[in-house]
């Protein structure tokens, strides 16, 4: 096997992820059924409907999940659907706040009227159960400290009967919390956006209908950006993914050729 210093390997993979930003191929991004199903569902929603977008992630997985959150938030605001943004993770609101402000400005939407942003509250399943029973018990105030009874968006929003879709974006098992404590007992329609690490594990839940769809990794975010015709960070990132994947596959092939050759020599 050819011994290559690991730092050369690091350099090659780094270049394969930096250079594509300057030499873009612009290949079309094929759409998968799991992503299209979420898009089609939101397309059926009206301005009276409510979507909960829960950004249940930390900075470590933000590059994959923030673009998903942004893409769905843009879609909902385009459709004038009411959005309640929140997070089960303590660092979540800090990551979501700049996205929410930027997108709301782009679409000239007003906080408290067209969308609401909720603060982090301790407890995962406790927050979910409280939201299903009575949203004022889960969030007495919004992220900016305003009592939610004073926010016009919450006129007519009380509990699970008023939520038309819940989407959990997570790099951990938070989707399971929404599934076990939200979907199963209360029947809320659920979708999820997960990191590519977890994506392969969720197909049983999609096939069973417990999730109506799934965005898997940066590709899922790029697919959604393509569907809503807003090509942003995820689409740009797929350029680098193309070449980096080819490099990794070549590493596997070359490594195995060397391994087999060594085996034959012996």
């Amino acid at each position, binding site marked *: 096997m050819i011994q290559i210093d690991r730092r050369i390997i*690091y350099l090659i993979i780094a270049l394969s992820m930096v250079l594509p930003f300057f030499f873009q191929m612009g290949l079309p991004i094929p759409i998968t059924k799991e992503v299209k199903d979420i898009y089609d569902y939101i397309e059926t929603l009206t301005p009276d409907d409510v979507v909960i977008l829960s950004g249940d992630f930390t900075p470590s997985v933000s*590059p994959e999940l923030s673009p998903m959150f942004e893409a769905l938030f843009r879609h909902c605001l385009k459709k004038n659907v009411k959005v309640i943004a929140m997070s089960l993770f*303590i660092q979540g609101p800090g990551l979501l706040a700049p996205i929410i402000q930027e997108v709301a400005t782009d679409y000239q939407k007003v906080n408290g009227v067209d969308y609401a942003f909720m603060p982090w509250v301790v407890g995962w399943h406790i927050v979910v159960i409280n939201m299903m029973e009575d949203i004022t018990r889960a969030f007495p105030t919004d992220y900016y400290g305003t009592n939610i009874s004073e926010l016009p968006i919450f006129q007519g929003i009380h509990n699970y009967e008023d939520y038309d879709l819940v989407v959990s974006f997570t790099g951990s098992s938070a989707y399971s919390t929404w599934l076990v404590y939200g979907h199963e007992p209360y029947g809320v329609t659920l979708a999820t956006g997960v990191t590519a690490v977890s994506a392969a594990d969720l197909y049983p839940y999609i096939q*069973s209908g417990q999730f109506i769809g799934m965005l898997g*990794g*940066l590709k899922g975010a790029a697919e959604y950006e393509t569907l809503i015709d807003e090509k942003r*960070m995820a*689409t740009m990132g797929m350029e680098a993914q193309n070449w980096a994947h080819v490099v990794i596959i070549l590493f596997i092939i070359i490594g195995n050729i060397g391994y087999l050759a060594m085996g034959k020599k012996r």
Partner: protein
Amino acid sequence: MQLSINPWVWIGVFFTFSVLSFLYKDNPFYKLAEHVTVGVSIGYGAVIIYSNSFLPRFYDPVFHQGRFELIIPAILGLMMILRIVPKYSWLSRYAICFSVGAGSGMAIPRSMQASVLRQLEATMLDLSFSSGQGINNIIIFVGVLVVLIYFFFSKEHKGVFGGVAKIGIWFLMIGFGATFGYTVMARLSLFIGRVLFILQEFLGIGLAG
């Protein structure tokens, strides 16, 4: 290209390269970044817990709404701290048992419903060839069965049982391969995120979307 004049962006870039320097070898810059992030996250958590949870969920209800019964769970929560005092650590068990008992009791019917019953129901598929999905449904049904048989270690994997369990291993290998193939994208995405930060926010390079 236009270098950022925001000092915070420069700080972000400094720490980004401090962590990346670990790829060469462990060094003081990486250790500095490690300890800075631990400290900052502790400080962040303290502020958020105080303003988002302590004030609206305990202080206001108890001192402005008269809900004094919430002092009992507060005492239970504080009892958990006694875990670090060896002489009184047994007192922390009351709070832990209260929470763990409730959590376990809640989990039993809910995980049964979500993870077992619904999944079993979804496995009962139409195995006929009348629909185009026929062969796929058979593969799914057989696959679930053989994987469950593989994980049944109470019986020795010999004979017919062992042969069926071996088929389960093939399904697991394909499943793990699929997970690994997907995982590669996840790992690469994390670095792509940092690259975009450096190119766009620091160097000010406009990348066409």
